[in-house]
């Protein structure tokens, strides 16, 4: 019954989405006021998808094996948290989660958006309904999560052990919230293009959604990077895997949008460009979903290799993005550019920011899809890997990071003050970092060397906007910007240190052997079998010493029974100046074990930087919402006094 209730809720929600779209057409075409009913419909639609998703959680929590999806992705012996998280650790469940978030976001737009004109809101809600409708159709016709099995099998096939990790419980929902948050920006942009009301009011309405989505994408990417780092046991934090790129591309577009939207909000300029970015940001989310779900590119993430689903998603992508681009092509001409600005101004700074981010986005997009195009044209097979991405995106990112220090110092419209003088201390810091690396490590590669230089400069330059004023009276949004930019410097420092100073040791060792890695002496003490709830493992006991400090690490190779699989559980110990990372592999015939040891100085700064960037976004969002709240309250009071 529970599964059927979920399915019924989904059908009802789809019906309401269709109605919402019809009301939008009526409202825009004839004299018909559908705004109020559309708002209520959007809210009910959101609630219905929440019901459907709750039903899916219940069948997973109960291990109801008569539901095909539960049978394929769960097993009764799994720990409870993974039973629940298993609901979205598969194709159908994750698509249901996607639709749920989309519909709930639509409900919030209906409840909260009071800043745009009524017409634009109606158009945006209609666009959101069309988006949802496509995904309802996808779920109901091509990936029903509630399909039954008869007779019900006694136990399920289990969840991929790589996914049996606390990271899984949060990583996909965070990214999806981010992806789908961008759908609101998309719908608002489409709505504004339809009504022709692209102005600073629209930008202010769109900004919290972009900011919120961007925060979640930042967190999702940072967490995903850390998950890959410790769970896969390869010791790297970014692999330029197509699916990693799929999450990076919307982030890059959202980052550009986040900056250009400020120009539109403050100065009414960059109208067409900002609308284009809003469309592209969500398009990139859809491209990401398509790449992951169609299995079109070879990747560790390719779950469902199913041409039918791929075709369906591609059709949705083509229709939505195509329609938005047609709208842009037709209506773009009517957009008047806003207030003019001079060459040295905050606006040009943000234009340069957007330009570089767009080039990086293009580089990642081309690199990800290039193998496909080459094979289409010449039949030749190739893969594009880290050497290309690092060589092309790395220098661009460094230039951008250098400019991050300058942009916030510039005034809107035109800058006539000698602001560059403030950059003396940061520039000195950067230069000394460069000189120090040249003296101490003459053999260091150019990218990490420049990474240290730019990071040292940016650590100081990023806080300049708070220096020449009373920092406690600065708006929260300024604090947010400073924290986020400081986070970039920190992450850059971590990446440079990891690239320049990592020591790696791959060895075969018998119990009693001692290996050195970086400053550590690592003794393989013993290898013993151990067991957990649904796995058995061999566990190595390593005793690592550096000077007087001694630590014990216990990496494992785990064998899971359902489904049968093997994972490396790395053992990682974090110190203030780096991480000791250990992995145990297979034994050879003589009873010696493969060991992989890394000493990674300051690697944790990468994720700390990512977290700071997200925190900066959160501060900015809080600042914007706080202001909104007080302004609304002041308005209400003014009304009360006036009409009392």
């Amino acid at each position, binding site marked *: 019954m529970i599964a059927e209730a979920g399915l019924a809720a989904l059908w009802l929600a789809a019906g309401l989405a269709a109605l919402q779209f019809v009301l939008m057409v009526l409202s825009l075409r004839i004299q018909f006021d559908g705004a109020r009913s559309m708002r209520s419909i959007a809210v009910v639609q959101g609630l219905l998808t929440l019901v459907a998703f709750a039903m899916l959680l219940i069948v997973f929590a109960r291990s109801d094996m008569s539901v095909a999806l539960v049978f394929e992705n769960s097993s009764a012996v799994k720990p409870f948290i993974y039973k629940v998280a298993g609901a979205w650790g598969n194709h159908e469940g994750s698509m249901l989660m996607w639709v749920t978030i989309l519909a709930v976001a639509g409900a919030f737009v209906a409840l909260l958006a009071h800043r745009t004109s009524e017409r634009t809101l109606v158009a945006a809600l209609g666009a959101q309904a069309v988006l949802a409708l496509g995904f309802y159709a996808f779920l109901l016709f091509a990936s029903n999560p509630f399909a039954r099995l008869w007779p019900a099998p006694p136990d399920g096939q289990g969840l991929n052990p790589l996914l049996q990790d606390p990271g899984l419980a949060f990583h996909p929902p965070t990214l999806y919230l981010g992806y789908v948050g961008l759908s609101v920006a998309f719908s608002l942009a489409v709505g504004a293009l339809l009504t022709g009301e692209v102005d600073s009011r629209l930008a202010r309405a769109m900004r919290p959604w972009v900011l919120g989505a961007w925060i979640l994408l930042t967190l999702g990417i940072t967490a995903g990077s850390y998950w890959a780092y410790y769970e896969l046991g390869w010791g790297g934090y970014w692999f330029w895997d197509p699916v990693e790129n799929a999450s990076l591309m919307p982030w890059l577009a959202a980052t550009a949008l986040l900056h250009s939207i400020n120009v539109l909000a403050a100065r009414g300029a960059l109208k*067409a460009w900002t609308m*284009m970015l809003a469309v*592209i940001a969500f398009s990139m989310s859809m491209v990401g979903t*398509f790449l992951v779900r*169609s299995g*079109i590119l*070879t990747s560790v993430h390719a779950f469902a290799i199913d*041409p039918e689903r*791929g*075709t369906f998603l*591609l059709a949705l*992508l*083509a229709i939505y*993005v*195509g329609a938005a*681009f*047609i709208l*842009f*092509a*037709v209506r*773009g*001409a009517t*957009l008047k550019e806003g207030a003019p600005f001079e060459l040295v101004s905050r606006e040009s700074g943000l234009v340069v920011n957007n330009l570089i981010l767009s080039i990086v986005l293009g580089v990642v997009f081309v690199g990800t*899809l290039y193998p*496909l*195009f080459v*094979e*289409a044209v010449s039949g030749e*097979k190739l893969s594009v890997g880290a050497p290309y991405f690092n060589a092309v995106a790395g220098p661009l990112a460094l230039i951008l990071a250098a400019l991050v220090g300058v942009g916030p110092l510039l005034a809107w419209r035109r800058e006539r003050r000698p602001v560059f003088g403030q950059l003396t201390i940061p520039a000195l810091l950067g230069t000394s970092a460069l000189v120090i690396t040249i003296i101490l490590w003459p053999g260091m590669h150019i990218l990490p060397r420049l990474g240290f230089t730019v990071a040292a400069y940016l650590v100081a330059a990023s806080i300049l906007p708070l220096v020449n004023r009373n920092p406690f009276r600065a708006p929260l949004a300024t604090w947010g910007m400073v924290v986020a930019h400081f986070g970039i410097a920190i992450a850059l420092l971590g990446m440079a240190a990891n690239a320049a100073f990592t020591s790696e040791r791959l060895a075969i060792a018998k119990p009693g052997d001692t290996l050195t890695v970086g400053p550590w002496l690592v003794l393989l003490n013993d290898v013993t079998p151990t067991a957990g709830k649904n796995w058995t493992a061999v566990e190595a006991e390593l005793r690592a010493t550096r000077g007087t400090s001694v630590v014990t690490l216990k990496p494992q190779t785990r064998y899971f029974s359902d489904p049968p699989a093997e994972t490396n559980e790395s053992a990682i110990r974090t110190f203030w100046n780096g991480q000791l990372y250990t992995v145990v592999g297979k034994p050879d015939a003589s009873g010696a074990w493969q060991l992989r040891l890394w000493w990674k100085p300051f690697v944790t700064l990468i994720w700390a930087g990512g977290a700071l960037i997200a925190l900066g976004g959160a501060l900015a969002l809080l600042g914007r919402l706080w202001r909104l709240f007080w302004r609304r309250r002041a308005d209400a009071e003014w009304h009360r006094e006036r009409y009392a």
Partner: protein
Amino acid sequence: MSRATRFAPLALLLLIIVALIWRLATPSDTNVHSTLEGKAVPAFALSAILPNKPPLSSADLTNGQPHLVNVFASWCVPCTTEVKVLQTLKDSGVSVEGIAIRDRPADLAQFLASNGDPYDRIGSDPQSQVQISLGSSGVPESFIVDGKGVIRYQHIGPIERSDIGLILSKLEQAR
């Protein structure tokens, strides 16, 4: 903004969609094509492993007739079912040669006794050296060699009953 600028994103999108449709329609070819196809079999002379079975050398493959050279082992589980398919091929007139990888005479005799023996010749490759020179990375694998000793086709994994037609047509082409 000029008309061209406004329509450029749409044009780019169409291009990308076309490429993606093409990829969905023609899924990536996951078959491994041997680079040795079209090249002569590397010279080798393997010793016999069983007293009643002649040994195999590369010279045996240049007698003007196409051969099916099967890389196998008695310890290989898929080989136990594949050997029955090879017997069917043998019965239809195909000459089947074997290269036994890292095998022991007693085990091999037991394997042939219980699963059937389609092989005209069997050479012993105790260190996998010939296997590696043929570009084979596992068992079972099979090579179709034409009468001049040139490799025409490499089959990775066991030959199933459903592959018989394919193998016979490849042998026909090698004639």
